[in-house]
């Protein structure tokens, strides 16, 4: 399978990429690692006439300890997040989840910013960063703005990024306490049929669901119940309260809701150890 024809321009900085998006408008797509976009283009589900290759903007690939949070450049690859000592120490849930994206070859190319900007509810890192209370930094022609993860995911593959904006940084608060990542799938490298990213520190917790609707879902009822003293079993019963799970070849809506409860319970048990 070969993508439809397109032109390609390389951007050497975020500013240059944003200027190129402004120039080409809706016809253009940003190309980072390409491991979400190129498959869509090969299937002709996406046919941009211009690709702006941002993969060579090396100064957007970094992981920094920024005091109360970890700052990760949008072009940092999954493999680099997975193996980072800083991420493993301060946000172990994120390092662990990054190691479950695709397979080793995919993680050598795919980027955290690409995954989040693609905003696929079936992907691991949008839900994981949502559970962790992350903030995303978008850059546009008029400078940068912060978008909290809870305000970012608008619909199926749809984010709060404006057409002339690009994601440049992911800020993830440092966590303490327990955490868990549950990924239920049939084959090792697949997307989750249902996934759960969770952390818990006493009465505080964050729980987000993978592939339980058109966007990643923050299970706020679960966290509210735990804060009010509910048991894990009681809180887990509320796992699908915010979700609108779809039915597809892998699972019915009802089965997904059941899986969410089971996986949230397991995640909370593991987080509470």
């Amino acid at each position: 399978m070969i993508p439809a024809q397109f032109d390609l321009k390389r951007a050497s900085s975020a500013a240059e990429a944003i200027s190129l998006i402004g120039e080409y408008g809706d016809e253009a797509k940003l190309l980072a690692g390409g491991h979400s976009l190129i498959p869509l283009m090969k299937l002709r589900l996406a046919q941009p006439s211009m690709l702006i290759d941002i993969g060579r903007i090396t100064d957007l690939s970094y992981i920094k300890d920024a005091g109360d949070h970890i700052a990760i450049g949008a072009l940092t690859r999954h493999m680099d997040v997975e193996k980072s000592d800083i991420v493993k120490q301060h946000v172990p849930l994120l390092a662990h989840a990054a190691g479950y994206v695709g397979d080793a070859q995919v993680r050598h190319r795919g980027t955290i910013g690409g995954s989040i900007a693609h905003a696929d509810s079936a992907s691991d890192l949008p839900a994981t960063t949502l559970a962790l209370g992350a903030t995303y930094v978008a850059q546009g022609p008029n400078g940068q703005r912060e978008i909290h993860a809870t305000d970012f995911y608008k619909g199926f593959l749809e984010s709060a990024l404006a057409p002339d904006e690009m994601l440049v940084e992911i800020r993830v608060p440092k966590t303490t306490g327990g955490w868990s990542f549950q990924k239920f799938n049939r084959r090792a490298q697949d997307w989750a049929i249902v996934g759960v990213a969770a952390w818990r520190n006493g009465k505080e917790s964050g729980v987000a669901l993978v592939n339980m609707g058109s966007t990643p879902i923050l299970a706020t009822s679960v966290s509210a119940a735990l804060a009010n003293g509910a048991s894990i079993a009681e809180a887990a019963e509320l796992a699908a309260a915010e979700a609108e799970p779809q039915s597809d070849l892998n699972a019915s809506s009802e089965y997904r809701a059941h899986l969410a409860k089971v996986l949230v319970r397991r995640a909370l048990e593991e987080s509470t150890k």
Partner: protein
Amino acid sequence: MKVSITVNGKATEHEVEPRTLLVHYIRETLQLTGTNVGCDTSSCGACTVHLNGEAVKSCTILAAQADGCAVTTIEGMSKDGVMHPMQQAFMENHGLQCGFCTPGMVMAAVGLLNENANPTEDDIRIGLEGNLCRCTGYHNIVQSVLAAAKK
């Protein structure tokens, strides 16, 4: 557009369409047909090559993205007619049946050992999750990689 890619140590330079995939540059432009196309959707790993030393799926990378990079394919693994220790291990441990997945398996396995020189059997099974063998010959593939790690 013109791309310059060092493949198996040799500089190559060709005019390609922007949509040319790396695997087609390797197989069709350079006529190096050891790298296979299996699923064509970055699932099966038959197209695995090394890009700047790391295992990647060449069906999901544009030749333009590899411009200026070094690529190693299965043809670049043997030296002076002597097989790479991983190829030798696959041969000695019957790590292949039909052979279609083998070039990708070998490239992924060498990439795995570059990152983890002493993997456990579990490390190998997880590390090769991106490579499918439709003969289901996984047992001997894992044995081959374990044997190569000991060499």
